[in-house]
C-alpha cells in the first residue's frame, strides 16, 4: 500500500511492516497505524512513520543493541492488550530523540508490539531505573552540521 510522509513523500509499504497501536501514543491521538521503515544500512535505526498523519515520524532503535542488560517486565494486562501468545513474538523498540548534543532513547516507555498480529502498545514501565531520556551517545558537531 502507498502512504504519505512529510519526510519521505509517497512510500510503498508492505502490509507486513504495518503496526497498529489501538490505544495510540501519548501526544498523538490521531495516529493509530504506523509503518516501520529501515532508516540506515547498519540496521540500528528505523523510522516509525504514522500512516494517519504524514508529519508524524519517530526514529526508533532496539534498546538491546545499546543497553545489553535492558529488560522489561511485561505485565499480564499488557500481554493481553498485545494479544500475545508467545514471548517469541514480542518486539521492543525505543524512540530516539536529540537533546543538545546528546542522543537519547526513551527506555521508560518503550514501544512493544506483537510481531505475529502487529498490534502495538507504548508501555509505561514501573521500573524507575529506566529514564525517558536514557543517554545513548554524543552527537558530534559534524553530524549536527548536516541537520536542517
Amino acid at each position, binding site marked *: 500500500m502507498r502512504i504519505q510522509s512529510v519526510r519521505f513523500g509517497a512510500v510503498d509499504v508492505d502490509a507486513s511492516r504495518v503496526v497498529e497501536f*489501538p*490505544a495510540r*501514543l*501519548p*501526544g*498523538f491521538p490521531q495516529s493509530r497505524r504506523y509503518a516501520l521503515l529501515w*532508516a*540506515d*544500512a*547498519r540496521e*540500528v*535505526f528505523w523510522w516509525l512513520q504514522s500512516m494517519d498523519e504524514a508529519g*508524524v*515520524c*519517530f*526514529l526508533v532503535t532496539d534498546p538491546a*543493541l*545499546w543497553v545489553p542488560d535492558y529488560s522489561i517486565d511485561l505485565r499480564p*494486562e499488557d500481554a*493481553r*492488550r498485545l494479544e500475545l501468545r508467545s514471548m517469541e513474538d514480542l518486539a521492543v523498540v525505543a*524512540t*530516539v*530523540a*536529540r*537533546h543538545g548534543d546528546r*542522543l537519547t532513547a*526513551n527506555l*521508560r*516507555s518503550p514501544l512493544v508490539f506483537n510481531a505475529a498480529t502487529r498490534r502495538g502498545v*507504548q508501555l*509505561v514501565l514501573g521500573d524507575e531505573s529506566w529514564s*525517558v*531520556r536514557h543517554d*545513548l*551517545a*554524543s*552527537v*558530534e558537531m*559534524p*553530524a*549536527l552540521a*548536516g*541537520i*536542517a
Partner: protein
Amino acid sequence: MLVLSRQRDQTVMIGDEIEITVVDIRGDRVRLGFKAPAQVPVHRKEVYESIRRENQRAAGFRGDVSQLPGPGESDGERETA
C-alpha cells in the same frame, strides 16, 4: 470539574466500563484502584506528561541518520568515515 465525596471502598463509575475505587486513605495520601478496558490506558498524570513530551521531542527528530553514532561508538571513539 465534577467533585464527588467518597469513602474508603466506595467506587465511582465513568461510563459503563471504567471504575475508580478508593482503596485506602492515610493522611494526605489516597490509594485508588482502576478497572478499565484494555484500550484505555491509565497513567499517573506526571508520568503521562513526561512521555507525551518525550514523544513530541522524538517525533521532531531532524537529521541524517547515517551520521548518527551506533552502539559502542561512544564519545571520542567514533571513527569518521
